């Protein structure tokens, strides 16, 4: 892997982490009145995957969509405007945290579990019908795959050999329930995923994600049909909201801390320094710059115009 790619991966993760930490630090001000599912701890997956995509590819995500939105190049200003419910937010203040989308960046998300999986499959269908080399990517959590539409979409994608990469961000929990209570060791859709030559990879190793996602995306572009990647990762914060939640009883403090030791960002920072891709000083300066930008975007968002009553009905059929 070349140094430019490594730096790109590192900066993508750093940006997601710092922007979301800005959300954490100001969420209590209650300016962002939108249920917020943070990706802190899971930055490697979105960063590693999206770094392989072109502008014409399309990415679909679910409720925990901040990381993919930012990795796809979504605007931080428009992100904060949206979370603050302002008119110039990326969804005009209509979608909030869980529907972040930007058609110009080929990015859409929706919090109905599994809901975007077939939509991404349909995007892949149109890519194929139009004989393009574009690829559709859909991020889903481990619980999203429990929905029937997943198996149905996989079936259709295989049938038509569609250029789609299904990414499962397996962070072990559906809200507050561990995967061991929700899925058998040999899940019912194993038969389907076997057809896809599925792979489970360490979703906290951004290079691993990048390399496997690259293989997947390239294979899609060559018309080889859909690919499935399960990226094992972990969310540090509560299911929805800015806090830690190891005190409420569904997971232990030790478990969270153990995963924090495997934090994708700090692991990769060490590597970036070791390989001398960036100097310690340069990392610190960049980090500071990103944090300032996130703070400024939030401050600007608070000054953003509110939608007016007239805006309520605009664009309604």
């Amino acid at each position, binding site marked *: 892997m070349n140094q430019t790619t490594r730096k790109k991966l590192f900066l993508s993760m750093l940006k997601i982490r710092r922007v979301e930490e800005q959300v954490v630090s100001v969420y209590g001000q209650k300016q962002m009145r939108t249920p917020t599912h943070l990706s802190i701890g899971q930055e490697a997956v979105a960063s590693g995957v999206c770094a392989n995509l072109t502008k014409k590819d399309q990415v679909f995500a679910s409720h925990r969509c901040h990381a993919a939105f930012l990795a796809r190049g979504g605007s931080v200003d428009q992100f904060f405007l949206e979370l603050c419910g302002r008119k110039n937010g990326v969804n005009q203040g209509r979608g909030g945290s869980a529907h972040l989308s930007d058609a110009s960046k080929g990015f859409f998300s929706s919090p109905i579990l599994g809901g975007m999986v077939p939509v991404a499959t349909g995007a892949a*269908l*149109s890519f194929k019908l139009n004989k393009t080399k574009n690829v559709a990517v859909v991020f889903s959590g481990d619980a999203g795959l429990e929905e029937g539409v997943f198996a149905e979409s996989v079936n259709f994608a295989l049938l038509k050999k569609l250029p789609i990469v299904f990414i499962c961000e397996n962070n072990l929990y559906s809200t507050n329930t561990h995967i061991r209570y929700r899925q058998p060791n040999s899940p019912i859709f194993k038969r389907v995923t076997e057809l896809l030559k599925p792979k489970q990879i360490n979703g906290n190793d951004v290079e691993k994600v990048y390399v496997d996602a690259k293989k997947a995306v390239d294979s899609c572009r060559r018309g080889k049909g859909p690919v499935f990647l399960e990226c094992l990762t972990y969310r540090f914060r509560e299911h929805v909201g800015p806090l830690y939640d190891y005190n409420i009883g569904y997971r232990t403090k030790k478990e969270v801390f153990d995963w924090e030791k495997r934090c994708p960002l700090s692991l990769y920072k060490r590597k970036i320094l070791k390989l001398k891709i960036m100097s310690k000083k340069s990392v610190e300066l960049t980090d500071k710059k990103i944090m300032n930008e996130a703070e400024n975007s939030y401050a600007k968002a608070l000054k953003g115009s509110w939608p007016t009553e007239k805006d309520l009905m605009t664009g309604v059929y």
Partner: protein
Amino acid sequence: MSRQITYAQAISEATVLAMKKDPNVLVMGLGVDDVKGIFGTTLEARKKFGLNRVIGTPASENAMTGVAIGAALNGKRPIFVHARNDFMFLALDQIINNAAKWKYVYGNDSVVPIVVRGIIGKGWGQGPTHSQSIQSVMTHFPGIYVAMPSTPYIAKGILMKSLESKVPVIIFEHRRLYDFKQYVPEKRYTVDFGKAKIFKRGKDVTVVATSILVHQALKAAKIVSDFGISVEVVDPVTISPLDEKTIIASVKKTGRLICADTSWLRCGVASEISAVVAEKAFSFLKAPIKRIALPECPCPVSRQLEEFFYKDYQDIVCACFEIVGKKRPNNLFKEKEEDLFLGPY
């Protein structure tokens, strides 16, 4: 001017014309590519455009509707067909949580103009889950249009219109109308959304009827006219958007409203139209509004029970006499007419 074609042929013709005009128009759904081609409505399209554009799908309604949405997002114009509209329930998540919300929430000129055709079956023992008429469910939600074409002319025009618009449209086609013949222009034309059609002018009673009941209302109007009751028959064509203006103007003229819909009463289309009139033309009403809809039970299979279950012109005739306060002559009807429709279903 004598070119008479059936409702099914009109749908097929609209599909083929649209596919010719716009290479992005696709047909999707279970059985759209099979030998029967949804009562013949997709056969011609398949013959002319092949399996890349008439795409048979697995029985995965929700996912396949999502696939249609994803394709529409990228410029395709899928017509998604449910040979029974009851199967649309399986796709409600995608239709309501995605298609109906897309433009409003995601903006940026991002639209998903899918057309969903759902066929209402009636009679012949199709029973509780193959003969429902689910228009009021869909009408409840903003962001989608709902049409209930009552004639071949409207069926062709509304499908053409849908395939040229940016709105997700649900079209409910009544299976019993498929063989109904009428003059239909060969060329392309459109029928507008939100524009009711007055099938017959009258001055005593307004009957607003949907889908197949338009024809029952016309039959009823003819019978009661012999007894001096003049009925105006209004077909809303689309129930979302609803042409309130035409309906209210008619009620202001006649002072009486009967609403007949192919589905149930509770929160149904007949109830909604009644509410609109009660709210906006109450002082013009000379008698309480009457609603004609299905009895509050699932559709039974038994032929005998079906006779009790479905509403027809006789119910409308009775309502007309009651609403004008005239006594209905005895022996006006012999028996309920025997159901001669033999399918295919």
